[in-house]
């Protein structure tokens, strides 16, 4: 059952990547692009977790955790930049 | 006590966090976790002067239950709206007047609002009396404000700022 579901899940997550990427290119405003980037981070976590289940390896977990943290910090820094024109005051 | 263990709750959560991070339960990691759980709040206590007091644990537990159900409900609701198509959405900004005053309660309320059905908190007014909330689809903004206040704000106020149950 799981073996049949995993390819479908891969396809869905890949489509999610494609759509987030389309929004990243199209914009039209800076917040849209940041939101698209943020969604791409979360999609990457989904992909890594799927890969971990598929290959039966727990090694991808650390990467997922790091991407979650870096993604959040990146989003906050970009938002701060939009709000104040400066990141560190 | 206050000086040497500034935030007991924070210390306990740090121990749990450490055990989750190393993903094993052994005496060695328990000791290391306890050491970190003591050292980090101690070193950071100057950045976090106020003490957190939880007044009605029962109310907090019930709130967490409601919150968990609403996250799932909210996701299904938004998923359905997205699948139905953008043409029929009626997005509105509503203003929620705040009764809670502490930083912690306000930020928890804002985060709760963002994760529950159809709403994202957008802006806290300069005087910290109003929270501006964007809803994706509503036909009755006043009812929505009343629901937010009664469903999320009232329990948070009880737990973190006192008041009758």
């Amino acid at each position, binding site marked *: 059952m799981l073996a049949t579901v995993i390819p479908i899940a891969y396809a869905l997550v890949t489509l999610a990547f494609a759509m987030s990427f389309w929004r990243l290119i199209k914009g039209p405003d800076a917040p849209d692009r940041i939101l698209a980037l943020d*969604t791409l981070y979360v999609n990457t976590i989904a992909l890594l*977790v799927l890969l971990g289940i598929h290959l039966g390896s727990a090694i991808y977990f650390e990467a997922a955790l790091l991407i979650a943290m870096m993604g959040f910090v990146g989003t906050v820094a970009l*938002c701060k930049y939009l709000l104040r024109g400066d990141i560190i005051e | 006590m206050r000086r040497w263990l500034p935030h007991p709750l924070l210390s306990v959560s740090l121990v749990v966090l450490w055990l*989750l991070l190393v993903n094993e339960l052994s005496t060695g990691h328990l000791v290391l976790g306890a050491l970190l759980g003591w050292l980090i709040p101690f070193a950071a206590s100057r950045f976090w002067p106020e003490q957190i007091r939880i007044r009605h644990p029962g109310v907090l537990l019930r709130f967490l239950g409601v919150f968990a159900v609403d996250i799932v409900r909210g996701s299904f609701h*938004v*998923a359905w709206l997205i699948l139905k198509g953008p043409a029929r959405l009626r997005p509105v900004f509503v203003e929620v007047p705040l009764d809670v005053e502490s930083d912690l309660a306000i930020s928890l309320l804002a*985060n709760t609002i963002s*994760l529950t059905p159809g709403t994202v908190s957008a802006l806290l*007014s300069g005087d910290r009396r109003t929270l501006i909330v964007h809803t994706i689809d509503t036909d009755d903004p006043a009812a929505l404000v009343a629901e937010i206040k009664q469903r999320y704000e009232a329990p948070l106020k009880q737990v973190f700022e006192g008041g009758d149950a």
Partner: protein
Amino acid sequence: MTDTLLAVLVLTGAIFTFIGSLGLARLRDFNTRLHGPTKATTLGVGCLLIASALFFSLRDDGVSLHEVLVTLFLFITAPVSAHLLAKAALHLKVRSLAPTPRAGDAQTTDRG
């Protein structure tokens, strides 16, 4: 039995991840787009992470709970990023389908 449960969790997770991005691509203004990734995607990845925790707990001896950490982290950070993005959009006066509130002009408190 557990195999079915795992399959259901993985599929639900993938579908919600997909729908979140679909909302991002499909909806018409920034503020409504914000709702898709914050709620649907977060729940989707949450489902996938729970599936992963279950999978590794069943396969190896002992429980594997560190996935809970990522789940918690995502559920704490998603509303914060959404709030900051909404605030930035109000600040930049991004085109919105909903009439923007007047307090949007007189902002900038420092508290995120």
